[in-house]
């Protein structure tokens, strides 16, 4: 294992742990998802660059486009939550009432 591989692997696992444990805001959860997507982008790019499989380097771009879709839907849910509940605490999403 190289230090580069260790870094992006630990970055992905850190984002996953931050998403799984103790989120108070919905926006914090979305930011952790974005961190996971960032580590996936870097991992795909490094795979391309280290193996010199340069025909593969369109894959990080497509991943970035799908990541933009995920981020926009997440932020739309954030806006809708802020309009229905007045806040974006995940605690208030568990109340099953508006």
């Amino acid at each position, binding site marked *: *294992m190289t230090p580069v591989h260790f870094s992006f692997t630990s970055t992905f696992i850190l984002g996953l742990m931050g998403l799984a444990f103790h989120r108070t805001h919905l*926006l914090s959860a979305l930011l952790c998802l974005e961190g996971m997507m960032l580590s996936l982008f*870097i991992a795909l790019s490094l795979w391309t660059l280290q193996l010199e499989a340069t025909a593969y380097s369109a894959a990080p771009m497509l991943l970035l486009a799908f990541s933009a879709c995920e981020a926009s839907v997440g932020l739309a849910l954030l806006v809708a939550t802020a309009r229905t509940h007045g806040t974006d605490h995940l605690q208030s999403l568990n109340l099953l009432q508006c």
Partner: protein
Amino acid sequence: MAYFVSLFLLGLVLGLVAVASNPAPYFAALGLVVAAGAGCGVLVGHGGSFLSLVLFLIYLGGMLVVFAYSAALAAEPFPEAWGDRSVLGYVLVYVLGLLVIASWFWGGWYEGGWVVVDEFKELVILRGDTNGVAMMYSSGGGLLVLCAWVLLLTLFVVLELTRGLSRGALRAV
């Protein structure tokens, strides 16, 4: 160059520690900006200058600006930075865990990882990643069309989610 890449890798991991340790969303967005900038440095260190440019302009310039703008919806009177006790506890736990795992791999680092793409070529006109991304428009055209279709679909999903007047997907908005 390996020292620079090591520094950027450290910035990447510490940026994600700053995001994952549950601070207020203002500071979490700042940590993600640091992580994205350090990721650009890592990609430049490996020779992927075009992918790094895309990451910097699209990701950092487009998406994270929207995230920082949306941080206004998560406003708090007393936002927690990394110095507060609960956040600092998570920071210390994550950093200690990373150090333990890194010491587990210590001494067994495979040193062939510092390759730069196209470094051993004599004369290159375009960098390898620029060529590869340009192939998205020729042989990767199907995925390009799929990607455009997904983005268009996402536009309508967002418009339905945020539509008011009790007509959208969420009726109580």
